[in-house]
């Protein structure tokens, strides 16, 4: 039998991994269209995507809680489709995380796509590569580092989430009780020893993850790779 903290770790990793995958799937086309978009609505979409960076998580959590409740349309639709309530479920915290971590995935990708520009894509088209071919064989390999950054930041930010999950997920072991919530529980119960274990592991885990991103993207490494070739 798993200890409650290990269960929280497992829930956290599952939530963060799923969130990251969903974010890459929907964030990539979104970032692509934002990078290519020239309409004046671009700034509005950019602002919406960036909102979680400045908004208190509890504000987002509050509105999501209302939307996810069976009294409101999104919650109702979900209940009709799945037979389960959306609020206080694992799905709810994944949806919340997707929205909350969106800018961390979309922004690095959008910047990378903007920097790449049209020249190499035009060259690809002139060699007979269609749009999908150009994306997978030109865009993806050249912006690989940005994809790694986007995925890692999205993942790390989701692991560190607290406010949104507290509002819409509550504290159900194995469902919505993630590490940050478990830590809060230990502190409330004055169990500082257990709180320390969780705090240190979150700190160390985040540190290792961030350091690996920076190492992966450092100019020094690129030089070494080049010489290696």
């Amino acid at each position, binding site marked *: 039998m798993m200890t409650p903290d290990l269960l929280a770790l497992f829930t956290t990793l599952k939530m963060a991994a799923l969130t990251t995958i969903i974010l890459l799937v929907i964030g990539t086309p979104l970032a692509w269209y934002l990078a290519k978009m020239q309409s004046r609505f671009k700034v509005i979409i950019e602002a919406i995507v960036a909102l979680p960076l400045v908004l208190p998580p509890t504000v987002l959590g509050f509105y999501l809680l209302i939307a996810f409740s069976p009294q409101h349309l999104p919650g109702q639709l979900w209940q009709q489709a799945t037979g389960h309530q959306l609020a206080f479920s694992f799905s709810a915290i994944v949806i919340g995380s997707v929205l909350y971590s969106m800018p961390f995935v979309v922004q690095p990708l959008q910047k990378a796509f903007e920097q790449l520009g049209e020249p*190499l894509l035009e*060259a690809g*088209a*002139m060699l007979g*590569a269609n749009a999908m071919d150009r994306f997978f064989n030109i865009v993806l390999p050249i912006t690989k580092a940005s994809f790694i950054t986007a995925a890692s930041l999205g993942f790390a930010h989701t692991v560190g989430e607290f406010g949104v999950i507290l509002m819409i997920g509550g504290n159900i072991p194995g469902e919505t009780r993630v590490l940050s919530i478990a830590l809060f529980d230990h502190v409330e119960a004055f169990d500082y020893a257990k709180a320390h274990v969780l705090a240190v592991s979150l700190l160390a885990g985040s540190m290792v993850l961030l350091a690996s991103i920076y190492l992966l993207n450092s100019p020094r490494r690129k030089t070494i790779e080049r010489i290696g*070739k």
Partner: protein
Amino acid sequence: MTSPSLELDLLLSIDIQLCFEKFNLTIQQDLSLRGITGVFGHSGSGKSTLLRAIAGLEKGVDGTIVLNNANLIDSKTCSFVKAEHRNIGLVFQDSRLFPHLNVLDNLKFAAKRCPNRRLNFNEIIKLTELDSLLQKHVDELSGGQKQRVALARAILAEPKLLLLDEPLSALDRQAKTSLLKLMLNIQNELQLPMLYVSHSLDELQQVCDKLLVLSQGKVIGYDGIHPMIHQLNHAQTYDFIHQQTSLSLPIKTLNNGHGLATLTLNEHDEIYLPALEENSTDETLRCFILASDISISLTEPINSSIVNHLSAKISTISTMKNKVLITAHCAKGNGEQEFFINISAFSQQKLALMTKQRVYLQFKASAVRTYLY
């Protein structure tokens, strides 16, 4: 090398209009493409935009572009063939090699996407002299090497038409020369029609069979390379080109032992120029003589160090400001050649030159310019 495809000209008929804020391009022209067709014009004349429209990279083109009876664009029926489906190649000014691939993989990128491969990959590498560069990263290449890879890559996609957008403009003279020679070699080996955009008439003069001239978004001329350049000599716009006599002449000797080569002008006259490379196998030479490099003498200047003096008859005299442009024909036997000469209004008056007058044209061997040697 693979056998050349049927020796039919590629027909490109263009009837398009493109409007930008400060610039309009209106082109109505049928081109019969064989060999290398040059597109000449100054910056802002619309030549690169025309090329991009043919390639399918320009959005908002109004009108039609038809290549051998196939519509590439028809804005009336809203049909637009995407760039990747046009089977047209384009070599850009800035190479645009893929930075995540080495030279070999850049070339393979093109070959892999070619549906019916006829060319032999290794023979193209040999033709473009890329054997020693295949494993190099594109960052390690010089400008000239990058363009050679870009050219090879474009050829390996086996387009039916190759567009070249100022491919030499970022290169030094030596790299330009070697790339121009390569273009001619490719042309000879593969018979691939090329449309070559440049603002350098010197380069175009060396390799093109025909020349299309644009100015301010409109076609101002389309003809064989020499007649077209000669028409431009009369352009009313001051200094549109350096007025010149453009020639293709049979090589008689590469080096006469005194550091000079000779070209056959007609049965009686030869033209001397600095000796050419001894290993050259070319039978004819493209060259040009600037109108400002030729002077006129009323008597044959036999006691001069200037080696070229040709008897000619003045056909036209036109004055623009203080400059006089004279055209004269060397008309002995069947090889009649028109020459263009610039002199000052002062000299014209002093010599009292008139049309139909017989004079001697003189120019130094070094005034006969060629780009490829």
